């Protein structure tokens, strides 16, 4: 099985180690990867700003970049979620309409791909009894519709105690350009999120979306809070026990 990696711009700009972790986990499970060169951003920053016409170049570019891929696996739920929005952006009869549907159908966020397609629950990651909490990103949950996969994979990480985060359903205040356009509101939101994270007593904050993670971590750092912040790919790639890795089974959702 071969997957095309959707590397996303926040990762490209800021966090190579997260992409590396994703590649290592996938390859350990026997998945071959490729990184289509032509890919750029998913177009969300401009699209959500209302610059819909200006986004179409980006969006068509992404569709073209992944046209020949069998699976497209992204490192951020929000960005993969954006792919599922593409089909609405083209009128019937537009040649890009079907291509957009195809891309949406073969796109997965990383943990979603592990759980839904590979049928894997335990990737062998191990910790030493640390306590962690998970921030669920809104776009991964509501736009992409993936609520379960990260929790199932995290529950199978040995030596990691997962603590529930209060107000799990609430946005952290990132919202892409919202965080720079409306910093006052964003601050109020991220402050509550930070306090919720701190209130759990967790030593590690985990998320599957780098935007949210960068937002909450940025606030934690500004306030001098001591906590470890990890992307879920880094967690799933931590201190791996090769003996324990689930065999890749039949896809759970074969219709994908």
């Amino acid at each position: 099985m071969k997957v095309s990696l959707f590397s996303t711009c926040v990762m490209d700009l800021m966090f190579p180690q997260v992409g590396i972790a994703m590649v290592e986990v996938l390859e350990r499970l026997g998945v071959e990867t490729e990184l289509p060169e032509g890919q750029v951003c998913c177009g969300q920053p401009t699209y959500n700003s209302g610059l819909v016409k200006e986004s179409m170049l980006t969006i068509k570019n992404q569709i073209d970049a992944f046209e020949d891929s069998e699976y497209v696996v992204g490192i951020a739920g929000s960005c993969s979620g954006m792919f599922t929005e593409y089909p609405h952006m083209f009128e019937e009869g537009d040649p890009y309409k079907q291509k957009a549907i195809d891309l949406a159908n073969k796109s997965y966020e990383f943990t979603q791909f592990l759980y839904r397609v590979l049928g894997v629950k335990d990737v062998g990651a191990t910790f030493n009894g640390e306590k962690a909490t998970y921030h669920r990103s809104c776009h991964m949950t509501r736009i992409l519709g993936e609520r379960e996969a990260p929790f199932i994979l995290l529950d199978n990480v040995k030596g990691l105690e997962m603590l529930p985060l209060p107000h799990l359903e609430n946005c952290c205040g990132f919202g892409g350009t919202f965080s720079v356009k409306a910093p006052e509101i964003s601050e109020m939101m991220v402050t509550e999120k930070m306090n919720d994270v701190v209130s759990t007593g967790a030593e590690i904050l985990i998320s599957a979306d780098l935007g949210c993670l960068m937002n909450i971590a940025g606030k934690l750092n500004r306030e001098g809070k001591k906590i470890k912040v990890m992307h879920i790919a880094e967690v799933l790639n931590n201190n791996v026990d090769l003996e324990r890795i689930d065999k890749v089974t039949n896809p759970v959702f074969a219709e994908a």
Partner: protein
Amino acid sequence: MGLSTSTKTFAERLEDSKKDTFARAAVAKAQDAQWEKRETAREELGNWQEWRDIAESIRQHTLKYLPHYLTEFSDNVAKRGGHVFFAANAKEANDYVKRIVLEKNAKKIVKSKSMVTTEVDIDPMLVSLGDDMDILETDLAEFILQVADWDEPSHIVFPALHKNRDQIREIFAAKLGYEGDNDPVNLARCARDTMRKLFLKSEVGITGCNFAIANTGDINLSTNEGNADLTISIPKTQIVLMGMERIVPSIKEAEILDNMLARSAVGQKLTTYVTFAGQKAEDESDGPEDFHVVIVDNGRSNAIGTAFESILQCIRCGACLNVCPVYRQIGGHAYGSIYPGPVGSVLSPVLGGYEQYGDLPYASTLCGACTETCPVKIPLHELLIEHRKVMEDELKMHHDGSFVNMEMNAVGMGTGHPAMFGMAVNMAHTGLSMLPKAKEVTVEGSLFKYGAVRKAPALAKGWTDVRDLPVAPPHKEQFRQWYKKHKAGK
């Protein structure tokens, strides 16, 4: 007050709400409490998503055939001896109500909570009819706002959410001579004593309308205090104001929507009083002898046939406010519209235009909680993007804020071309690495591996105003570089 609740700018209102820590805490507490009640009420019903589908289809159907159902309703009201008036705007609605009140020479008017009467601003008109006018809001929360010199509502369903019992006690003490404590039971008793006196003497009753029933000419009202029932049954003259979209074909559809409304709004199966009423029939013992329905457009038809038509599906349950993380922080008054929260951010620009309400569609992270909870499936967060699209792409009224649109256009260019994207990534690193760093990085893990930026200019200014920004890795350590080497090493 009308649709607009403030003359301040959005930024000024935000500043006010940030300072009002009491109101913020009250909203957060109310949201948390509502969450559980609403979830329980939904679970009890079972198959919530199917109910939503049905509710959506009822609302869509009615909107599609709106002229038909409005005509049917109007004919049925007339058949029973009542009157229907179509008001194109707030002035026409007010003029009609004024004419009726003057004709009746009425001095004592009772009102039951209604958003549309606030929207068209009936109260000051009634007050202006003379010093001897006695006007009474009979919903407890609206009564509190009225006594507090007509303070503005901050929530569609819980209009006095921003006031606590101590504040209410002070208001009652100052305005009503109340001498008791801050116990809600005693406060409610004080309000009731004031209200009952006027109820019995009232000459005109004014209510809103949750749904109008097309095939009977009845109106449907949901309340928990029974105040609407008294407002309908005691005065001889009844004036109902309704938004023109608040109509259903028959009582069957109203029943479904009442279920969705009560469960979504207050987490109840049904509200304590669910009333169907209209012109008093010959053999009935109570009810209005003179029954008027004012059907208000006031900007609603701006949405018909556009991408925003689905906002008229709204049944004013306020559930989107109760899940909105932005509303949670800034409260209702910050929106500057009597319709706050996600529904207000979509509806207010439709009714009142972008010049005044153009900030509201940007006051959202597009998290989608509103869309997910809406009992009639309005795609609220998508409509917020649609507003932005109209403003940016069609009207070219660029929304700057702290974020200049030129820069956003540059982002569009940068993300659209693979080559430029690569350049942008490199430039971002160079730019970020030159900025002043935080002395200490407390957050562990790889996110701040290259340090933290405290103060950034341009695009990232808003970001670093409130939080730190991780420094980007040097070019040779970027993911694409690593991946090339990784593949070559295979």
